[in-house]
């Protein structure tokens, strides 16, 4: 019985790391532009289809899709923001909502047209691989996904913290007028933030492809999940995204053990409500800007 809970805890931590990658992307976009990316879950699903597609074509594990997902989703996010989204940054929020919800609907529609509505799962012998550590069985696919997610999050944090371009993202989030006054190309910076955020979502999708059956309508679940994590962890806080992701992952895993797998949303929303009541700023929220 004890083993069951420890197993759930480990599974929750592992999937939570991937959730954290999704939420980190959402938080980066919000932190820099104060724009909510309603198409975030759809971008995750693009990554899932890329993972599935590459596996079908080559038999490679979806983790090998990461470079493609990063580059592809970065290009898409950058291009969309640069040539469409930037015109909406200074507009009222409800106008932005329509734009990004529109983008979400378009992506889901395109998925439905290309792949159809049926779930597509990766069936490979590798999905039964396990590591045995101290009598525990750790799912290899999940462990690899979690490690890859942690590496990507760490790289993104380091880039934001130490590179001059990363600091320019902070600067634009902190004082847009000041950033423009010293010649920071804020259109480029906004597009970079969206590209990076989309790349996080896409890479997370590629990691999730072997764990969930991919279908177009999964997207809104991921968008909601990312919102919950971001609100639990704290808006615009990158450590908050990590903490929130792990907490939600663990809460869902315990739901599966204690009640049943379909009850996982009950637990994550329960967590959301508790945090909103006790700490409305989120666990690590209350500070402004990206990456802090």
């Amino acid at each position, binding site marked *: 019985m004890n083993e069951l809970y420890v197993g759930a805890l480990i599974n929750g931590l592992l999937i939570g790391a991937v959730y954290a990658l999704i939420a980190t992307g959402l938080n980066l976009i919000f932190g820099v532009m104060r724009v909510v990316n309603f198409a975030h879950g759809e971008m995750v699903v693009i990554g899932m289809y890329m993972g599935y597609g590459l596996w079908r074509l080559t038999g490679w594990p979806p983790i090998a899709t990461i470079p493609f997902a990063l580059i592809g989703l970065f290009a898409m996010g950058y291009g969309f923001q640069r040539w469409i989204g930037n015109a909406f940054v200074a507009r009222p929020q409800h106008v932005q909502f329509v734009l990004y919800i529109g983008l979400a609907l378009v992506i889901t529609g395109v998925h439905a047209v290309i792949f159809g509505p049926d779930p597509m799962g990766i069936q490979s012998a590798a999905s039964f691989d396990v590591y045995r550590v101290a009598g525990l069985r750790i799912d290899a696919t999940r462990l690899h996904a979690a490690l890859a997610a942690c590496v990507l999050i760490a790289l993104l944090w380091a880039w934001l913290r130490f590179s001059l371009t990363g600091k320019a993202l902070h*600067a634009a989030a902190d004082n847009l007028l000041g950033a423009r*006054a*010293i*010649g920071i190309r804020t259109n480029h910076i906004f597009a970079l933030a969206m590209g990076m955020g989309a790349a996080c979502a896409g890479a997370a999708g590629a990691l999730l492809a072997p764990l969930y059956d991919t279908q177009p309508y999964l997207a809104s679940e991921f968008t909601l999940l990312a919102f919950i994590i971001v609100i639990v962890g704290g808006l615009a806080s990158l450590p908050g995204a990590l903490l929130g992701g792990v907490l939600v992952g663990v809460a869902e895993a315990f739901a599966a053990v204690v009640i049943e797998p379909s009850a996982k949303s009950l637990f994550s929303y329960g967590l959301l409500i508790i945090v909103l009541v006790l700490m409305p700023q989120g666990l690590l929220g209350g500070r402004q800007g990206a990456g802090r």
Partner: protein
Amino acid sequence: MSALLSVDQLQSGYEGVAILNGIDLHVDRGETVAVVGANGAGKTTLIRTLGGLLKPRAGSILFDAKEMAGSASDRVCEAGLAHVPEGRQLFATLSVEDNLRLGGHLNRSRARMVRNLTRVYDIFPRLGERRRQQAGSLSGGEQQMVAIGRALMAEPILMMLDEPSLGLSPIMVATLFDVIGQLNRDGISILLVEQNVAESLAVAARGYVLENGEVVLAGTSAALLGDDRVRRAYLGL
């Protein structure tokens, strides 16, 4: 046309509101020029339009023989026209040094980042002591030093300062105008926009008086300081 900055019939404003109604002014190489006027005269609109933050409706901005009207701020800064904005507009949660480094990110200056940092710390030793501190935690005077240092990092030919003395103590204001004089002697041309008429005309060679978006008076500082209208309206004499 040998002027470094030459502004001709510049019109600008915000959505639906015209603020500048045809401004003519120029700054020669090596000069310090003041633009003075009351609140709402259009001084900040002028600086923001010159700096590429606002698109002019008409007119021309010739800087270093290049037409800048309508160019975005990154091109203006790359050309060597630096902007120290009103209210400083620092990156409050970043360190002093990060604020300065971001000022030096332009192609024109990036390669000499370290040398320029040393130069700024030489001019403002206080900033060197506080380089790791968050810019938002500094005093108003120190923040103004960061704002000027950040602009210096771009190795400007001409520096525009928008109300740099705003909210500073009298001692700090005196120090600030000393620094502006020093920068000018180091070869940087200065366009100074101020409500503080006496001090800014003391440091500038020439000045323009702005009222309701128009230049109503122009001349040498001495002539302006001696003008009855200026004395009554701005100096309270």
